[in-house]
């Protein structure tokens, strides 16, 4: 017998169907562009430099949080505590510099370290208690928000040095520092998530924890690392926000977790885990920023923005649910075709 007969086994598998993720990205990009141009045509000035800056600054902190949230959501988890960590970082860095007189750089490092510890605790409790991340991170949210309120007595802290204010208002290449940070962080994290073997494990965990453990992945360690990462990013956003607003306040960033989750979900990540990209999240963030801006510049009641935010979150998850259904149907069709084929082939044999 000839061992190989390549003509019979050579089956090229390059499917006609386009990758659904790319369709989503291109679609989202086009919709964003349409909203941007339409609002510019209607209200004017939208594409002016000053407005673009306002537009970007409106979502940049939520966008930074969304970057970390992407990792958490791909792994099949959720982090509701980001907004509280954000405010905590504002307050801590302010207190360190203004009340304790710690130099800027040291204050920032200590603050980021503290946020990292909070995130690590989140991850640790999630893997140790085996409770849903919602509950753990909500406990952290409550605790931390309470701490924020208590240590500031509800008042805001201000009086930053000019060096520090650069982190919020300074410009690099004509762009605000937080925006530069967002772009750099997105690039770095995007590359890591797409190409680094450690972070690739996040996708496997999100696809299913049992298979992940079977293929030798240390699920607990990876989870702790990504919750830490998520909290550090929220902390970084908080530090820059303090510099941006010139003040630290416990109420800052309220409901930011909703916007961060919405940005990730709109960006095409599966909220049940297993898929999503930094690129998608960036697109989702830009989309939310543009829509927000359209509301602000239009005469439409800007308070409607919250409503639109909620509706968009729901639409995004409904859409991903719909795609999931389509895949299930396709699987069933394959099954049926196989059954039909088997049935006819056994009939032929019995004849």
């Amino acid at each position, binding site marked *: 017998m000839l061992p190989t007969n390549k003509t019979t086994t050579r089956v090229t598998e390059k499917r006609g169907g386009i990758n659904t993720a790319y369709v989503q990205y291109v679609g989202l990009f086009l919709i964003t562009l349409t909203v941007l141009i339409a609002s510019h045509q209607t209200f004017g000035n939208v594409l002016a430099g000053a407005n673009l800056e306002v537009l970007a600054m409106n979502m940049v902190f939520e966008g930074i949080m969304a970057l970390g949230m992407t990792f958490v959501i791909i792994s099949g988890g959720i982090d509701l505590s980001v907004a509280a960590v954000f405010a905590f970082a504002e307050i801590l860095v302010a207190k360190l510099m203004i009340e304790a007189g710690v130099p800027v750089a040291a204050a920032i490092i200590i603050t980021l370290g503290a946020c990292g510890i909070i995130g690590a605790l989140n991850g640790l409790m999630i893997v140790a208690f085996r*409770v849903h991340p919602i*509950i753990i991170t*909500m406990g*952290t949210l*409550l605790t931390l928000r*309470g701490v924020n309120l208590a240590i500031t007595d509800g008042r805001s802290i201000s009086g930053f040095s000019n060096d520090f204010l650069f982190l919020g208002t300074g410009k690099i290449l004509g762009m605000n520092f937080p925006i530069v940070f967002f772009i750099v962080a997105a690039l770095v994290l995007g590359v890591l998530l797409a190409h680094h073997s450690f972070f690739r494990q996040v996708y496997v965990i999100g696809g299913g924890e049992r298979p992940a453990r079977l293929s030798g992945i240390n699920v607990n360690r990876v989870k702790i690392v990504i919750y830490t990462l998520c909290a550090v990013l929220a902390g970084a956003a908080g530090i820059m926000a303090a510099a941006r607003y010139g003040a630290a306040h416990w109420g800052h960033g309220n409901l930011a977790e909703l916007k961060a989750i919405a940005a990730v979900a709109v960006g095409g990540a599966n909220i049940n885990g297993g898929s999503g990209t930094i690129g998608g999240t960036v697109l989702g963030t830009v989309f939310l920023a543009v829509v927000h801006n359209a509301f602000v510049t239009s005469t439409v*009641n800007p308070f409607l923005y919250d409503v639109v935010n*909620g509706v968009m979150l729901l639409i995004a998850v409904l859409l991903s649910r719909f795609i999931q259904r389509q895949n299930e149907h396709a699987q069933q069709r394959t099954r049926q075709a196989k059954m039909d084929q088997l049935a006819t082939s056994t009939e032929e044999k019995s004849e």
Partner: protein
Amino acid sequence: MSLFHATAIRGALATREGVLVGVNLAIFAFLSFMRPDAFASWTNLKAILSLMTYDFLLAVAMTVVLIVRGLDLSVGSVLALASVVMALLLQDGIPVVGALAIGLLVALTCGFLNGMLIAKGRILPFLVTLGMMSIARGLATVLTTGQYVSFPKAERWFTQFGRFEFRLQIGDSFYGIPLPLLIVLATVSIFAVLLSNWHVLARLFYVGQGPEAAKLSGIKVERYTIAAYVIAALFVWIAAVLMTSATRIGYANYGIGAEMRALAAAIVGGASIAGGSGSILGTFLGVLMLALIGNGFILLNGDPNWQQATFGIVLIVAVGFDAVRTYKTRR
């Protein structure tokens, strides 16, 4: 010896609710000892009970959805929306009954939408209700542009009953018992009895304990899930009515952060995000515990701002406590 009863005693009271009663008594005793004059006075106790009325209603709502393996983060903002809608209608001179009915309709619609998206759309409860939280709060803000809504034209009885107190004379002293407190205790007690004794509501526990098993046992799982969110909305509406009546104002910022307190109280009270468990008594004890802790902070000249942090820690400790317990029994 009876079936549900004996389990309740052995399984729950001996552990969860028993522990909670103990913890509550300990806090009570501690505060009575530290501040005998201020704490144990009727005025103070009344204040604790009145303040926890709203949280209790929202926690009951949360308990009902937790039982069916759900979650409702929109309780606080639906409260605000219902309050704002009712206040605006009253301001325009709509009769109280009509305004309340429309408020009820608004709340139930929110609950129904939550339930539909979760049961039929198969979307995670926390996402659906997070979306609803934003939508309802946004609508309330849009309707009022963030302003207080007063309703001077409304019928007097509505603006009175939220603050009405029955005066009870025992010996020389008078005890005022707030009417809203009585209404809430009565409503919730009846509901608690029905929840564990009426076969229709008792099925909610089956739905949460094992949705697939419940379906194969002939329970209409989707319908019951939707019903749970609608029932939750009903309790939210009651809270909205009482709050609007007591403050004589409709306000879009009512109930901010209330969903967190409600969730913490329900989880501490024995409900689980995994579904199938939870009791109204446990939730009551959980709310009471949080209220006593809050009161303690004030009385002991502690910083009241630390309250919220304590709630979070209590929640995490309760969850950790459960984790250790399940770990022991399942091994």
